[in-house]
């Protein structure tokens, strides 16, 4: 910064850049840092004991468990889907290839709530497939499958879109070289393709995890907000807050915040590796 400032012609005012930088710092403070500190301050406002008690409350524990299990299902599935989709698009030519790229990106442009409502209208009790599902004793909505489905929809593009540009840039020559050297399809994938994309893959997985854990709108539609049963962590925070249990709400929120901070650090580290 100081270097940029000293390169200004003598006599020219340096106050302009300083005001802009000051403004940026102020806004970051107001919008990001202050709330972050506030979350932890409120969470611990009644002391460690109260914090631990609130976290260990059965409903909150269940929400943590539900969010974890959702992420544990969604992230691996999306990694597999992302690799498969990127592989298909980058390394093969087939009709409808362009369309597939567009479809992968759809969740970015559709509100999660819309997705949730669509699932509700399709798989819900009154939905199109509702009677059939009921007849076979399958409950999708207001249960884990619905939560997983909507989260999967929302996070579907994350891995594919990190891996795809890299695979496209690498082309197919390395794989062709491996073929001529006698490698089998699986050997080519694990020893040539995968190592080439591993950092981008991890990066995509981190983004996917952060998003899966934090998803609110879509999940709120399909989960039915059943206390202690279908509330994920973000929904639990809202519920506790509406119950006027501020310490409880902030304690739960602190868990989400911690996950987000860890993801942020991982993301920064991976971004460095990815660029190498």
């Amino acid at each position: 910064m100081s270097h940029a400032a000293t390169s200004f012609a003598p006599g020219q005012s340096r106050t302009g850049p300083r005001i802009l930088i000051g403004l940026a710092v102020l806004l970051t403070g107001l919008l990001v840092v202050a709330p972050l500190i506030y979350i932890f301050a409120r969470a611990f406002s009644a002391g460690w004991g109260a914090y631990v008690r609130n976290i260990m409350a059965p409903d909150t524990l269940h929400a943590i468990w539900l969010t974890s299990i959702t992420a544990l299902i969604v992230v691996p599935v999306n990694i597999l889907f992302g690799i498969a989709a990127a592989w298909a698009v980058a390394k093969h030519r087939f009709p409808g290839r362009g369309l597939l790229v567009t479809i992968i990106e759809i969740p970015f442009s559709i509100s999660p709530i819309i997705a949730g409502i669509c699932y509700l209208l399709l798989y819900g009790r009154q939905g199109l497939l509702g009677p059939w599902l009921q007849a076979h004793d399958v409950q999708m909505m207001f249960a884990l499958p619905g939560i997983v489905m909507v989260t999967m929809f929302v996070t579907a593009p994350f891995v594919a879109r990190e891996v795809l540009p890299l695979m496209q840039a690498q082309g197919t020559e390395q794989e062709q070289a491996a073929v001529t050297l006698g490698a089998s399809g699986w050997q080519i994938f694990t020893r040539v393709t995968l190592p080439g994309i591993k950092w981008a893959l991890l990066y995509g997985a981190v983004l996917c995890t952060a998003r899966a854990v934090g998803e609110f709108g879509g999940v709120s539609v399909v989960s039915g907000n059943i206390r202690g049963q279908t509330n994920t962590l973000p929904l639990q925070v809202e519920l506790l807050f509406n119950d006027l249990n501020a310490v409880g709400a902030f304690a739960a929120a602190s868990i989400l915040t911690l996950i987000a901070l860890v993801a942020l650090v991982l993301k920064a580290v991976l971004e460095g590796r990815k660029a190498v």
Partner: protein
Amino acid sequence: MTITITGMRKRFGPTEVLRGIDLTVEKGELVALLGPSGSGKTTLLKIIAGLDWPDMGGLDVDGVNWLNLPAQDRRIGFVFQHYALFPHMKVRDNIAFGLTVRPRSQRPGRGVIAARVDELLHLLQIAHLGDRYPAQLSGGQRQRVALGRALAIEPTVLLLDEPFGALDAAIRRDLRNWLREVHGATGSTSIFVTHDQEEAFELADRVVIMGQGQIEQIGSADQIHDRPATPFVANFMGATVEIPVTMRAGRIEAAGIDATRLERRVLPDGPATLFLRPDDITPIADTQGCWTIETVASTGATLRIALKDGAGNRVETVLPRRAPEAAGLTPGTRTHLRPEAGSVFPGPRPATTPAPAAQAPAKENIR
């Protein structure tokens, strides 16, 4: 391994990339595929390697139909134009790759693989680079690693796609000699692709000239240089001056051309086209001549002379500056042209680019 290619055709969508290739490469031979960019050289190489398939035609290697054999089982060494090294593996692991992916029953032991890699690093003169990554190597060094990786599996057929295309002139010359030695040492049958004439002729036992998906001519440097089989080859070999002439009783006749230095040819009477290299044309000052010198540019050793005739045809010739004929050649001088050597093909001058000979042209040439 004797490679026999018969009637091979391949199209990508509407473009016919290979239009009937017939070629036999003998065991232990080093053959160059020479041709302009887009003539289908890489496609042919990839089909031999099993990385692509023809629409029609046969590929036989020592009596085995290779079109039914997956690329993994052909045991060829393929060196890619841009090397295609594995960037996340050290040089050593790149070279060992083909050995380490073998099924357990056929895989040599760790020690054997390491010894083989050492041997190759030594042969390739990059013994000190074994623990580097490809990104830490120069172009020439990468090229050596790519070749080492291909040689590690002891291929019976070695295919190289423009192996020196991305390197500068000095390194090219160096690697060329060295490739010749490696080919001799391994005894493999080798085909390499190039668009560099000098490289092709210097390195190969035989040169195959390809133009727009067809083989135009197969031969040695002298054969191709002196007796181009088609207008395309004549043009590709530098005979860029095309003059419409008339054949009469085996003699070449055209206004303003002194054809006395050209041999008589066995060609039917009628229109024909004379293909000449700019440095095989001598302008002779002649007040009756129908060519007029437009410009004369000197490069020190040679003169580059541009001429024009009454009909607006333009010709460029190159003449040693100290040649006796060069005296008195100044802009505005009227001359006739005396070709020293050239080839003639029946039929009028082809439109712009030489058509890839739809009909086989008569192989009648002059010296």
